[in-house]
């Protein structure tokens, strides 16, 4: 088992003919993901990496029964891409696009909430269930099938931690980046709820960073509801206040959203926190029998 994506994933790529879309379609196909369709309005009839291209998501869904979509369109078209996917009955939308205005995401998230549909991101690197499916831009080679779930607000930092977990001899059930933006479709707690019910997941690593209070809320949730061991990491201990650290959501506002308060919240709620990425992998290895 795994969460979000697996062998049943029938993936559609929105923006498949673009530079990123076509490159990663190839990567995903190579990984073994069942990529059934692509969409670029006006480019119907083409093929990308053997995948047929349609003019609209609705048409692609009708023809291919796609159930999952990954979005590679430029930020200014991303919210419409999400609406289109949701309207066409897609159940899981993974939005890779970075740079969607927060006020648009507020609308998108509200619209989606009324549908039988989940949105991951925007600004997500994607989701991988090793050996099952890879949706997004995460590099496939670092993953190994196993029992550790990884959920993160970041991209490459996740790869770093996953890589170390893999090198320690453990594998992963599902790994995903929920996106570095302030307003995102799926949060840590949403993922933990699914990991809780996933038989193959024995432990979860939560990779947080400065900004907001998602880590604090997650800590309380873990303490009160989550039975499996959880390990944490928080990036940005040395970040200054009121400066956006790359991600739109990674900003300490005045004195709120610091790494210190997040680490304290994790530790107060029984989540073991690694000081460095390497230490996180070590903690997982030591604590998982």
């Amino acid at each position: 088992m795994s969460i979000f994506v697996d062998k049943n994933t029938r993936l559609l790529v929105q923006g498949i003919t673009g530079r990123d879309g076509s490159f990663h379609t190839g990567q995903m196909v190579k990984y073994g993901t069942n990529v059934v369709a692509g969409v670029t309005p006006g480019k119907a009839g083409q093929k990308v990496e053997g995948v047929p291209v349609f003019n609209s998501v609705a048409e692609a869904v009708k023809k291919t029964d796609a159930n999952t979509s990954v979005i590679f369109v430029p930020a200014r078209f991303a919210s419409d891409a999400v609406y289109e996917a949701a309207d066409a009955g897609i159940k899981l939308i993974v939005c890779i696009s970075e740079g969607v205005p927060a006020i648009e995401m507020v609308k998108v998230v509200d619209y989606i909430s009324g549908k039988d549909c989940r949105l991951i991101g925007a600004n997500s690197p994607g989701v991988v269930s090793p050996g099952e499916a890879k949706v997004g831009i995460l590099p496939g080679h670092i993953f190994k099938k196993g029992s550790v779930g990884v959920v993160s607000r970041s991209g490459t930092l996740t790869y770093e931690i996953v890589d170390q977990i893999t090198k320690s001899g453990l594998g992963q059930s599902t790994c995903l980046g929920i996106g570095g933006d302030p307003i995102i479709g799926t949060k840590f707690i949403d993922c933990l709820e699914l990991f809780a019910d996933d038989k193959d997941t024995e432990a979860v690593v939560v990779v947080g960073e400065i900004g907001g209070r998602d880590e604090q809320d997650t800590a309380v949730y873990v303490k009160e509801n989550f039975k499996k061991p959880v390990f944490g990491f928080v990036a940005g201990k040395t970040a200054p206040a009121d400066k956006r650290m790359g991600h739109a959501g990674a900003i300490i506002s005045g004195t709120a959203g610091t790494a210190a308060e997040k680490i304290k919240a994790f530790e107060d709620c029984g989540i073991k926190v690694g000081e460095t990425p390497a230490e996180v992998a070590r903690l997982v290895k030591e604590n998982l029998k």
Partner: protein
Amino acid sequence: MKVHEYQAKEIFKKYGIVTPREKMCRTVDEVMAAAKEIGIPCVIKAQVMVGGRGKAGGIKLAKNENEVKQHAEFILKMEIKGIPVRKVLVSEAVDIKSEAYLGIIVDRTEKKTVVMACKEGGVEIEEIARQKPEAIYKVYADPLLGLMSHKAREIGLFLYNDPKMAFECASVVSKLYKLFIALDSSLAEINPLVVDGSGKLIALDAKINFDDNGLFRHSDIEAMRDRESEDENELLAKEQDLSYVRLSGNIGCVVNGAGLAMATMDLVKHFGGEPANFLDIGGSSSPEKVMNALKILLKDENVRVIFFNIFGGITRCDDVANGILQAKEALNIKHPIVARLTGTNEDKAMEILKDAGLIFAKTMDEGAQKAIALLK
């Protein structure tokens, strides 16, 4: 992106929010002229984009012409939190009867826009939020319908007992919400919102921050950017699609990905070093991008060692290696460089860099430790 108080007030005026009579000035002479026009007593306010101007002495009431001159001279020579004051706002001295706080942000937890009001104005809202959160009244806007009139009234009725004041306030709330949404703001704040002697509501201070992700559709806001007040290297980085924040240490970090870049800074600190910067070269980097990154990094004279921490996924390590090689020659870099390049095409990268005189590391821990060791 931030703007100055005087710029935020220009926006307020455009949306019909009443502000004091005031004028932005750059010189003492301009201040003298403005004070005469606006009337004395008046208030002289330093225009810097950091908090705590008041405490630092950057806001002063001038009761006569002499004081106008004195204060103007004083403030225009000040530095506040390291930032030189280049502009002041000369403002009418409003007869303040009461002060309140009004602010709008996007609430990450509720995933909605929220209007916050507090009967105490002129205070740090985060301070209040920590010490007595119950003093902050919150009203959420509907994501699709916006801030309904009855919700704006709710804020008005919370702040003021007098119905007339409450409705006037509701109108200010609606206008503030309108501009917040229209301009892709991340913060719009009136602190304090005051009632003057004649019972009029006035935005005595104004603060608007803009969502960088929304700026592409607001060239008029982008044009308000005060380049003098921002770090020129950070701006330069942004123009080149890099993300750079200067810190005070001496180990320059070049990383791909924001989370990993932060973790790299943290790791340097963890092993006893001091990072000189946050620098994310982004997902799909080319040799040129690496070159640009190093150019920016080296403008910081504190930097003594350069630490590359690259986790190759989409980023190809050979691209980064080529960039290092090119930059080393073109920029004549003498600094020691520690390189930890792993993932996609790392073997090719090693091949490219084998004679470049770099110090290599297998892991980021090793890299950070080697970088620190080089400083000794």
